[in-house]
């Protein structure tokens, strides 16, 4: 899988300390970005693209992205799922402009090349010419000019796509540990989309993954979260990874609103903080086991958020080295009571662009980019919890970030 370094286009070598160091050029270098698109998002990866409930009926489609590449997810007339590029085979026009919809065919507005729901080219105007003039060459075959198709995999209502047909089967790609936590939220019940939230964050896409793989910051930066005991360093917790280190789960449970040795280092903690209207935080247990928060990061573009009763897919769409788009799809289950729906909508105040928790993260990611961009030759330190990449049963570790970079280096040949 690793590529051979055959040129000197890259800005430098990875520091000899290994994954306990991160060179800052990986956040801003254009050649690194180009290779990430090719080797990570375009390689043997399953990119999250949609929820099945977004395309339930024949003819349904959704615009999406795999890495920074625009794609379309469709359900064809036979009920099959298809993912193909949102780029006309003729002149490259991005032909699908609606987020969601239902159609029998896609017609490129430029020269009206027409594709079916599987991305096959089914019509080219003036193919035989007009009045015996012009037209396509006699050997022009429609079947040779369909839309580039991606491999598709679906598990319990979640759709993934890959540019590389030799990608491992989804279950093997995720691994048993990740499937256990994936199936905790996606247990086969029908889902209900509650709405979307879209955000542009001026930072490198990897900083989003680092953020969700880093429980160290969660106990310190997120005063709201810790003040209400939703996530804190002194609660029974775990960091679990798959065998490659590319995926991870941060698992914890709700605790008390109190001070302790774990909060003594938190300069901004507000233990006296109470809500005038406590309906904002009225979580009920809905998943088996003790965990009340599981944040799962799936390589290369997905965060599955389960914080109390707020559930969301966070779809990472890189937009150049220094920016990414974050598309949030908040959801619940089709059989949720109205009370549960309202609870999810209230708790969504913690997440998204105005989230009482995630607002801190978007601001910090912007500040990280501002700090690292001008200093590509500087190096960051990842030594909390040691220098290795093993699972941990506590929150005071950066092991999952190190493991992520272990896999990243392998795929990128760095």
């Amino acid at each position: 899988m690793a590529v051979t370094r055959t040129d000197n286009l890259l800005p430098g070598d990875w520091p000899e300390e290994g994954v306990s160091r991160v060179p800052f050029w990986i956040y801003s270098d254009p050649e690194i970005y180009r290779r990430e698109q090719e080797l990570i998002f375009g390689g043997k990866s399953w990119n999250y693209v949609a929820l099945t409930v977004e395309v339930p009926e024949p003819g349904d489609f959704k615009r999406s992205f795999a890495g920074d590449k625009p794609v379309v997810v469709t359900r064809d007339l036979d009920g099959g799922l298809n993912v193909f590029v949102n780029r006309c085979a003729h002149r490259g026009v991005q032909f699908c402009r609606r987020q969601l919809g239902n159609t029998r065919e896609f017609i490129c507005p430029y020269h009206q090349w027409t594709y079916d729901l599987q991305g096959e080219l089914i019509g080219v105007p003036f193919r035989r010419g007009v009045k015996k003039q012009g037209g396509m060459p006699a050997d022009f075959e429609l079947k040779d000019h369909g839309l580039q198709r991606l491999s598709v995999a679906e598990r319990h209502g979640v759709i993934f796509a890959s540019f590389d047909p030799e990608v491992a089967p989804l279950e093997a790609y995720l691994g048993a540990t990740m499937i256990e936590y994936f199936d905790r939220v996606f247990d086969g019940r029908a889902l209900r989309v509650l709405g979307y939230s879209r955000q542009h964050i001026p930072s490198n896409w990897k900083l989003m993954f680092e953020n969700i793989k880093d429980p160290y910051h969660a106990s310190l930066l997120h005063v709201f979260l810790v003040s209400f005991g939703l996530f804190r360093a002194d609660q029974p917790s775990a960091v679990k990874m798959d065998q490659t280190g590319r995926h991870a789960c941060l698992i914890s449970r709700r605790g008390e609103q109190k001070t302790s040795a774990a909060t003594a280092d938190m300069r901004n903690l507000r233990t006296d903080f109470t809500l005038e209207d406590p309906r904002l935080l009225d979580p009920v247990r809905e998943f088996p086991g003790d965990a009340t928060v599981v944040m799962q990061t799936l390589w290369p573009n997905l965060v599955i958020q389960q914080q109390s009763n707020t559930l969301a897919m966070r779809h990472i769409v890189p937009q150049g080295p220094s920016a990414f788009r974050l598309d949030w799809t908040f959801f619940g289950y089709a059989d949720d009571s109205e009370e549960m729906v309202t609870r999810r909508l209230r708790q969504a105040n913690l997440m998204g662009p105005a989230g009482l928790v995630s607002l801190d993260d978007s601001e910090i990611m912007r500040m990280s980019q501002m700090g690292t961009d001008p200093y590509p030759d500087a190096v960051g330190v990842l030594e909390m919890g040691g220098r290795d990449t093993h699972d941990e049963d506590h929150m005071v570790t950066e092991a999952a970030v190190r493991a992520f970079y272990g896999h990243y280096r392998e795929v990128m040949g760095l």
Partner: protein
Amino acid sequence: MTGAARFELKLELQELYDAYVTCLDDNDLESWPDFFTDDCFYQIIPRENWDNGLPLATLRCESKAMLRDRVVSLRETSLYAPRYTRHLVSALRITGTDDGVIRTQANYCVLETVVDEATKVFNAGRYLDVVVREGERLRFKEKHCVFDSVIVPTSLVYPI
């Protein structure tokens, strides 16, 4: 409603909106909840969700107490870069005056100036509101900020 009464109400509403956005742009967040009734509903919601009947809001408060909680959380727990906002409101219309409530709508545009950055159009949309009279004051019983801007730049810190 006579023409004169309607004109007077329009002026009164204009004063309400002017005071409301001045309060926000002065960053006097502690006074912001006073523009609402105790049982108010306030949300900032993407048009994409609003038009498709999807209930998820970017920010949702179901009482004046929740508005106050939001202000205290922002002041005491959140981390964000310093910024100024400037609200421009236009095309204020009275769309109904039934059942003792006044229904209004208006266009808004929020300009945001984050430290070290050029001023940008941060958010543009419509206020779809329900206003009621409480004693001498008009207050928002409902305020739906439905924004056209598909993508929120970095973060939505202050109310709209």
